[in-house]
């Protein structure tokens, strides 16, 4: 087990290096000058050149990469070319906001998805299965940008029961764990939970159905175990797959909520990325992509280790 964990942690090093290369190179693929979007429309060439030197954009790309990587290792992700603020500081504000949203959405998606998927798998072929599967397919198919707008129209504009945007009366800086603020979390979290909910429903359904068809389940029934006890065994067997899917989903939600965060003006990493993309804020883009990708890498690592702990077969392999 320990050897596996060490091996798995060692894998993270080349993966992370690959991630840094992609995070750095990706933003340079877009055509055009890295500063054109932030300087005035007809800014004098000498001022633009001076800015380029200040930000190091006049250096060859491999040199820029080496310098960026060296600084990133010390936690310095450079300064935004738009507002000159340290990227790490912007991320320190945005990441907790996104985590709050992503974890809430994953929890909603996981609880709802596991229940629906479990029911669908257990009662395969019945109307319960059809309803749950239908819900799962819809969840995966609905574009959450559209769903967000629809939910806002219904609950914020028409019924005026939930807010349409933001993190509360004072913004993220004034966040408190009370209903005044939590009500701002409801619509974006539900919107964001729909896709993981659909995916988890389908995964759990397929896994439960597969386990049910295995001989050991028949053996358990033959031994006279009650349904509840049998279900426990099924859950235990299904857990590794579901955990892996949930871990991946959380990873996706951490990085993939650009649209939802924009629709709801939720000041998280997605909103930060959206702003950085439109204004070609290369340091912010690179820093945010790197941090989000590293989240994914770490989450995968955690899921792998957790799976191994839950499933002894994986330890042996």
């Amino acid at each position, binding site marked *: 087990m320990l050897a596996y964990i060490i091996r798995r942690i060692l894998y993270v090093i080349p993966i992370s290096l690959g991630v840094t290369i992609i995070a750095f190179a990706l933003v340079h693929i877009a*055509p*055009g*000058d890295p*500063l*054109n*979007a*932030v*300087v*005035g*429309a*007809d*800014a*004098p*060439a000498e*001022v*633009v050149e*001076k*800015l380029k030197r*200040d930000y190091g954009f006049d250096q060859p790309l491999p040199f820029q990469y080496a310098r960026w990587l060296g600084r990133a290792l010390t936690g310095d992700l450079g300064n935004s070319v*738009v*507002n*000159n*603020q340290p990227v790490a500081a*912007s991320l320190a*504000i945005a990441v907790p906001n996104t985590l709050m949203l992503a974890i809430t959405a994953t929890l909603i998606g996981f609880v709802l998805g596991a229940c629906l998927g479990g029911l669908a798998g257990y009662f395969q072929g019945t109307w319960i299965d059809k309803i749950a599967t239908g819900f799962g397919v819809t969840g995966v198919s609905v574009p959450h940008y559209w769903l967000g*707008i629809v939910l*806002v*129209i219904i609950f*914020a*504009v028409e019924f*005026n029961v939930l*807010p*349409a*945007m*933001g*993190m509360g009366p004072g*913004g*993220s*800086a004034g966040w408190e764990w009370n209903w005044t603020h939590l009500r701002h979390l409801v619509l974006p979290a539900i919107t964001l939970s729909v896709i993981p909910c659909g995916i988890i429903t389908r995964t759990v359904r397929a896994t439960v159905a597969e386990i049910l068809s295995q001989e050991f389940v028949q053996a358990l029934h033959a031994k006279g175990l009650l349904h509840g006890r049998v279900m426990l065994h099924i859950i235990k067997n299904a857990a590794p797959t579901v955990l892996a899917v949930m871990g991946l989903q959380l990873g996706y939600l951490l990085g993939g909520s650009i649209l939802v965060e*924009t*629709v*709801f*003006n939720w*000041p998280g990493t997605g*909103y*930060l990325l*959206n*702003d950085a993309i*439109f*204004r*070609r804020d290369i340091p912010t883009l690179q820093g945010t992509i790197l941090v989000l990708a590293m989240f994914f890498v770490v989450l995968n690592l955690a899921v792998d280790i957790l799976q191994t702990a839950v499933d002894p077969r994986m330890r042996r392999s």
Partner: protein
Amino acid sequence: MVVRPFLRTLRTTAVALTLAGAMALPAAAQGTLRLGMTANDVPLTWGQPDNGFEGFRFVGLQLYDALINWDLSSADKPSVLIPGLAESWEVNPDDPTKWTFKLREGVKFHDGTDFDADAVVWNFAKLFDEDSPQYSARQASLVNFRMPGFEKVEKVDDYTVEFTTKEPDSFFPFQISYFLMASPSKWEETKDWNAFAQDPAGTGPFKLDVLTARERAELVPNAEYWDPDRVPKLERLILLPLPDPSARTAALLSGQVDWIEAPAPDAIPRIKSQGMEVVSNVYPHIWPWHFSRVEGSPWNDIKVRKAANLAIDRDGIVQLLGGYGVAAKGHVVPSNAWFGTPSFEVKTDVEAAKKLMAEAGYGPDHPLDVKMTISASGSGQMLPLQMNEYIQQNLAEVGINVDFDVVEWQALLDIWRAGAKSPQANGTDGVNVSYTTQDPYSAFTRFIRSDLAAPNGVNFGYYSDAEMDQLFTDIQTTFDAAERDKLLAKVHTKMVDDALFLWVVHDVAPRAMTSKVKGFVPAQNWFQSLTGVYMEE
């Protein structure tokens, strides 16, 4: 006899109550205004704002003043320049490269320090002197291009400064209205523009109270503002960046904000049905096609340019915009002093357009192919895809087949800057970029003067005309405003008569607000005053 003292008491009480009521009026006429901007982020607060003119409108000109300000008090006539931090200015008749500015005395920055000639010199060093400790390349990149002829500024006495320009330039007063004055002492406290941005000090009618990047800026009134008539009535102004039009509209309809910029056109009937107001007014903006005039461009033929201008149905486009637009008659509106007396009328006349195309050698059997580069979105671009497709249909009717190269907004600006001959222009015959016509340089000079073709400027099409160049030389040395306007009218007359652009519409800047927002005067300008605005209880 007990009644009389009672009546007296009653009367006294009534008078006292009335007085108290009257005194309480300003307090009642205050409140907090929550304003949803279209910007992705709070515009920079350190002096020179980013986010284009929206940054000037809501942050720059609220926290700061320029030496010359815009008069934003009238909705009925185009705004004019008025004294700001300078009480008067004049050009030296013997050497028109020198301008003397008499500064306003008794003005204080938000940190309590005095505004004087040293502050002016310091602020220009911040932008033009790379060796000064306060030099900010980022701020310079945002504004220096508006004053291409700056040479130096010197202190004459505590309240007089003298500017020197590289060559005589009658547009200097317009240019200086973009240069905002920040407190040197405040910067000296930290010697760091990032720290200054968090706690800035200007001389403007509002002071910054709270700033959360990408989320909000909260401004409070500067009770000691130098112009007592413009001390803000609001108690607090909250600026919220809401870039997504549907999110912005939903925020207004659900009562989370009181005012939004640029509501989605299709949401306007709904906004109005909830008793809210949609305020609009024409302002210096034009949505055109800017033609390439390099060798081989189909737009080099004046008949084709005129035919295109006659072929499009501008009223239909205004309808597409929900009525929020004005059909263009030229680069500026006819009521503008610079409009002139063009003989070519920009209007819809499809038959005349067909005739011109036939004269140019084109027709239904032999259509003209043109390629235009457009964007799917962008600042001031209104509804670029729908509007361009509408124009494409109109032009097809007269024998002009338009092929679009749709690029991202920033990529379009890169092409526009690089010019029609550049490789990234990819052989395009023109670009669709909307323009400000707020000042003569932005409206005309930069597109027309032949020496401002890439890489020197944004004469995208490489337009070159000796007569026009001479006119601009004359204009820059004409310091009498009325005479200068007459010459600018000549420029515009020639522009229209030569059909230099395909002019489509002027935006009217619709902004939606709840019925509680009172006192707003929509000036015919990109900038707006918020000092008279208050919230009704």
